[in-house]
């Protein structure tokens, strides 16, 4: 019981949100492109480049704002590479994305070594991390202080973005156009929407969010950089996107679940569970959660199909996730 209450104390709320934020940002970035019909697997590479740029700029200029802006710029640049390759030169977006992921890791290793002569982790001393938000009058109470205070700028920002994205997708003409491209390209084109331009804008936007996610990783989540620091968070974001069918709010809940498992796991480690199993937990949870949600969705659509006596299987195909 003692172990149980130690693991699931109130402080796990903060830990959950902390762990969930990088995945959430990645998930927001891929939701946007998925709505335009592009599965952006290059999000990991964008995040790696963003994280690297942010920490370098932050340590050189001492300004977190400049670091964040630079990370966004680099994120957009990488997204532009992906869009030019995919949209203009008809490359398979999956191939480009996977290549970008390896490219980003190699480039950051190369630059770390040639700029600073460092191998492995980069821990600059004069680092300007992202600011944390505190509400002073809550500081007096230990529990409230833990739950509501000391959140990083982007930990709050990501939640705002979730609802912003939801508003954009459902309530603005731009969002509806974006979705129409993903749903039926030909119909959208007939309606006078520029397919490639819409996809390009979606990719650029995911570059912005991906850059922010990277900046958050190296300046908010941790105060160092290693080239492998994204380690699957981008793909967990993609899983959250598939889980929610592209709904930002449900995707956020999925990310919170991943974050919760992650933070529970790291507490279990203190009780002698081998670290490998603890590190496995978030990946396994992601797969299980995704599978269960797809199973429920399949059952629902089969029920629907049987009730209207159509085959309905092709509808299922459309929702592959």
């Amino acid at each position, binding site marked *: 019981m003692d172990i149980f209450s130690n693991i699931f104390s109130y402080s796990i709320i903060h830990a959950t949100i902390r762990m969930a934020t990088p995945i959430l940002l990645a998930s927001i970035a891929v939701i946007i492109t998925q709505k335009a019909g592009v599965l952006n697997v290059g999000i990991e590479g964008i995040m790696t480049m963003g994280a690297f740029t942010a920490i370098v700029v932050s340590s050189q200029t001492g300004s977190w704002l400049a670091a964040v802006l630079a990370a966004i710029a680099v994120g957009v640049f990488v997204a532009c590479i992906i869009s030019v390759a995919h949209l203009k030169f008809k490359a398979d977006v999956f191939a480009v994305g996977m*290549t970008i992921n390896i490219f980003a890791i190699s480039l950051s290793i190369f630059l770390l070594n040639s700029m600073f002569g460092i191998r492995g982790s980069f821990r600059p001393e004069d680092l300007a991390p992202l600011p944390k938000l505190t509400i002073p009058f809550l500081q007096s109470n230990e529990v409230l202080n833990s739950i509501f205070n000391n959140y990083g700028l982007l930990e709050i920002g990501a939640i705002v973005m979730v609802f912003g994205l939801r508003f954009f997708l459902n309530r603005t003409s731009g969002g509806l156009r974006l979705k129409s491209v993903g749903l039926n390209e030909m119909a959208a084109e007939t309606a006078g929407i520029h397919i490639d331009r819409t996809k390009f804008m979606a990719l650029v936007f995911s570059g912005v969010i991906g850059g922010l996610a990277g900046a958050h990783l190296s300046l908010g989540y941790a105060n160092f950089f290693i080239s492998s620091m994204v380690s699957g968070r981008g793909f967990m974001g993609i899983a959250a996107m598939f889980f929610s069918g592209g709904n930002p709010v449900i995707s956020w809940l999925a990310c919170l679940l991943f974050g919760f498992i992650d933070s529970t796991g790291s507490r279990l480690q203190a009780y002698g569970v081998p670290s490998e199993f603890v590190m496995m937990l978030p990946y396994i949870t992601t797969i299980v959660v995704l599978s269960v949600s*797809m199973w429920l969705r399949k059952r629902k659509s089969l029920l629907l199909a049987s009730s209207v006596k159509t085959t309905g299987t092709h509808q299922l195909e459309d929702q*592959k996730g």
Partner: protein
Amino acid sequence: MLHKNTYLNTIFSVAIAFLVGVVLILAIGQNPIEVYGELFKGAFKGSLNFGGTLEKFVPIFITAIAFYIASVVKLFNVGVEGQMYLGAVVSAWVGFSFVNLPGPLHMLLCFVCAIVVGGAWALISGILAVRLNVNEICTTILLNYVAILITSYLVNGPLSAKTGISTTPNVADSVILPWFMSPSRANTGLFIAIGIFVLFAWILSRTTFGYKLRSIGSNKEFSNYIGMKSDRLILTGMFLSGGIAAIAGAIQVLGVHHAFLNGFSSEIGFYGMLAALISKGNFKMLPVMSFLLALLRNGALNMQRFTGIEASLVDIIITVFILIASMDWILVLFRERKKVRVQ
């Protein structure tokens, strides 16, 4: 026409990637000709270097075939890396455990166990994709991390050689694939790789089974309609893919390291996958692309030894090459010119 395009495209991509490399090398204040000279010397000169290239070629080539087989039935098996790790650790375990078996049987057992485990691992994603429409890119990638962590746990715990470094005990001498180009570690696994390639070239183009796989890949509904059991065939394809990836791991253990080393791969599986992707569905291009990637990677390691330039520079050149090779330059340029003419 299509094939001609692929070859032109490849040559073009290599040229551009090397130009990007020149810019990078100049940027860090080195002489590009010298660096490239070292790179090619490091890949070809002498049996040590050339053997090293062959040694690196084998796993990239086999994982490329593995990725290709899954892509025939329209599944992206990004998990080749993880399946390779599992195959490696299983073959290492069999290799040092059942030492009383006669040599050839023992070696066969190593490979069979590796294939079963790797194939089963790939089947997890396959079944989820076929039955529940779970995106297999997601699950295979996430299972990669799980597989690598499992092997890392095994090699540090139950299977550890207890020598202080993360490795299993050495496998029995009878199961070792001999080195044929000493002092390099090029081993007879090369012939296994070629065997797999020929076998699958034959299966895919000349057998009913291969025809069924291709048919499902190009039109699943039609194949269902004419009575193929498409789900089962897709799963078979995925199992084969995982099994082949595991063979790559087994060869790394039995032929190169003679034990399972923690984290031995350095993204071999990903390079294999990329080699398959830039072959763009052309099975005959797989050895060419895999060899190109292998020679660059091996050359890079030797270059690092002699010039002190980071090998990651070559990883950058390789990824730029893959990026450019994945694009359809010739097609687009050709089409643009046509457009101009029409106007």
